[in-house]
């Protein structure tokens, strides 16, 4: 059931091809689940310019070291269609024109590649290091094959004090450094604010504090071992990241999972969406002092998680997927109890949501706060509810449907208001949409197996898997060696782009509103830092 995304060229890619022809740029095309276009490195930037002109979205970027060369990849998307662009670089002096001048969203992905591989993106608007702090020496690159997993770390890695932040000067301008250890129970990262009075003039993020070397750790793993790791890229997105990794691996191995397994994966993924939305809507209300919502939503989330423990054996649904299917089947009794659970959740929400909707103090704090314009969201390629609250009408489940979403009706909520309130309402509506989806999946759940036997993929086979997680589109890349082990794994979490959006969202808001603005985006630190 692995989706065939675009077997033939379509209007969108034809338009791009004819632009390329006009510009006399040669493309070598390779068919596949996602069509691969090979291009000369010199045209890397020009391709981005043409794609940008035709409103393609920049969706991911990653690199890989081969014996004597580097491969650099970018993924572009438009209306559910994907193009996988690739170029080969000289291994001695890897250099490539930056696409970040055209697509702002590409900036941090390219800096990531620069730090991990030592690939030089010429004319990059910001060539400061990003993922690298001080844990490994200058001119050493952890994802190169000659870099050992253990590295040669010092006893204590010093703090990254010489990173050059943007400075603001003038009467009354002051700076607030926050983090990496924050005041709440949240992940670590550093925020540098420039403020005048209470108003935020500028925010600069410094992330990568939880860089754990996930890409390097993936090398040499078996499919099962990779899944355990993928399930821990971001603990709140364990199902969606596992699913994206599975889709990439299954594509590489050329296997189709049983329809029943696809439906159970869908149920798991929608459950994860509901759990996170419930928790976050409560937390956002709590950040503006509305404790009622926090208490009610955390109560619902707790009940939801306990049911997950009973049904799937894990409160966060970790390790429920296996390569080729799912670990555990659902009995008819479990389906019936899940339908009952959905009805209960809906009636609880029907009582709680009106109390939120009609609350003027909540309205006062959430409306117009943390505004993200449609244009900025488009520029950064903002994903998930952050994008959808700012006019980005895009959802992998609907636009590039994969099983089970190709057999059920997925409605996508889109607004253009772009403020914290809008992101909250998009998420509330998504909870109701997911309740309907789970109900549909329960009703239509096909009979049959839950796992397809794994087949060792041919050496060098690759896969690119897309999944709509609760934060938005996840893209995962894998390549296998010839002994059923992984040689390269790159997961692109939606936070990669949404973190960039946060820097703009908070501008001109008051400093005390940063927590609520931040929570309304809720980027993953771990998923971003890898």
């Amino acid at each position, binding site marked *: 059931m692995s989706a065939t995304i675009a077997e033939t060229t379509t209007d969108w890619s034809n338009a791009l091809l004819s632009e390329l022809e006009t510009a006399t740029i040669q493309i070598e095309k390779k068919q596949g689940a996602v069509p691969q276009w090979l291009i000369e490195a010199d045209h890397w930037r020009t391709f981005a310019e043409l794609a940008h002109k035709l409103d393609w979205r920049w969706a991911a970027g990653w690199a890989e070291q081969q014996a004597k060369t580097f491969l650099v990849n970018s993924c572009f998307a438009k209306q559910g269609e994907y193009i996988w662009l690739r170029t080969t670089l000289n291994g001695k002096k890897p250099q490539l024109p930056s696409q970040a001048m055209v697509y702002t969203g590409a900036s941090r992905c390219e800096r990531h590649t620069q730090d991990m591989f030592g690939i030089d993106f010429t004319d990059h608007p910001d060539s400061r290091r990003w993922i690298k*702090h*001080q*844990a*490994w020496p200058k001119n050493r690159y*952890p994802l190169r094959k000659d*870099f050992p*997993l*253990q*590295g040669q*770390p010092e006893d*204590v*890695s*010093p*703090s*990254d004090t010489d990173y050059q932040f943007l400075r603001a000067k003038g009467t009354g301008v002051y700076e607030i450094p926050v983090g*990496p*250890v924050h*005041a*709440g*129970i*949240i*992940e*670590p990262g550093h925020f540098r604010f420039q403020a005048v009075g209470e108003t935020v003039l500028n925010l600069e993020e410094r992330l*990568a*504090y*939880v*860089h*754990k*070397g*996930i890409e*390097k*750790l993936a090398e040499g793993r078996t499919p099962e071992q990779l899944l*355990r*790791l993928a399930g*821990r*890229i*971001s*603990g*709140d997105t*364990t199902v969606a990241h596992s699913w994206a990794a599975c889709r990439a691996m299954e594509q590489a191995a050329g296997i189709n999972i049983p329809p029943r397994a696809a439906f159970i994966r869908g149920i798991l993924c929608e459950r994860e969406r509901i759990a996170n939305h419930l*928790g976050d809507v409560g937390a956002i209300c709590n950040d503006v002092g509305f404790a*009622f919502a926090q*208490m*009610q939503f*955390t*109560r619902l*989330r*707790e009940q939801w*998680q306990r049911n997950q*423990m009973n049904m799937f054996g894990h*409160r*966060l649904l*970790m390790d429920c997927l296996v390569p080729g299917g799912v670990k555990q089947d659902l009995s008819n009794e479990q389906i019936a109890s899940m339908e009952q659970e959905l009805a209960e959740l809906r009636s609880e929400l029907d*009582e709680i949501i*009106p*109390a939120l909707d*009609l*609350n003027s103090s909540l309205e006062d704090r959430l409306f117009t706060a943390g505004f993200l314009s449609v244009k900025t969201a488009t520029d950064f390629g903002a994903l998930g509810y952050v994008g959808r609250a700012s006019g980005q009408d895009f959802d992998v489940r609907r636009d590039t449907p994969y099983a089970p979403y190709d057999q059920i009706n997925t409605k996508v909520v889109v607004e253009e208001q772009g403020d914290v309130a809008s992101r909250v309402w998009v998420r509330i509506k998504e909870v109701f949409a997911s309740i309907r989806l789970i109900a549909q999946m329960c009703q239509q759940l096909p009979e049959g197996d839950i796992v397809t036997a794994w087949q060792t993929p041919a050496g060098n086979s690759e896969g690119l898997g897309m999944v709509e997680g609760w934060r938005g589109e996840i893209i995962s890349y894998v390549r296998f060696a010839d002994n059923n082990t992984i040689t390269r794994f790159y997961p692109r979490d939606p936070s990669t782009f949404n973190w960039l959006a946060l820097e703009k969202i908070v501008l001109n808001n008051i400093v005390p509103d940063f927590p609520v603005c931040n929570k309304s985006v809720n980027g*993953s630190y*771990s998923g971003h830092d890898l």
Partner: protein
Amino acid sequence: MLRLFAKTFKTGIVTERIKTPDSAELETLGIEIKRHIDKHFSGSLAIREVDAGSCNGCELEIHAMNNPLYDAERYGIHFVASPRHADVLLVTGPVSRHMQTALLRTYEATPSPKWVVAVGDCAVCGGEFGGSYASCGAVANVIPVDMTIPGCPPTPETLLKALLGLMKGKGK
């Protein structure tokens, strides 16, 4: 506003009773320091949570301790915004090398007497990530650890029981 009160009354009190762990359970938690804790912190535990490299799974469950079903605060367990206010550092994650100095400084900033609780498999033994060029592995490789709570992630009940074990005469 009426809807809000109506829902609050309808929901009622959902908080559940948690049993303090018996001595066998305490032993598995490895609490040799209980005696000292009783002496110094009887009745209240101020916790500073430090994510030193976690995947955020442990944080979700630590958060859950504060939901109305567990309501950790009724036992005097509360989370504080600064290590300078804390009795206990609750540390999660394998310690990423980028967080190593920050964790050391947080430890130094916590006034004595202080205790460190390593939460989750990664904090206890390195877990899925272990030690590497980017990770120091277990918390004990960086700062002294007094108590460990394994699990991937540990459930809020496990966490609460372990913390209750640190306190005297609470939760009975």
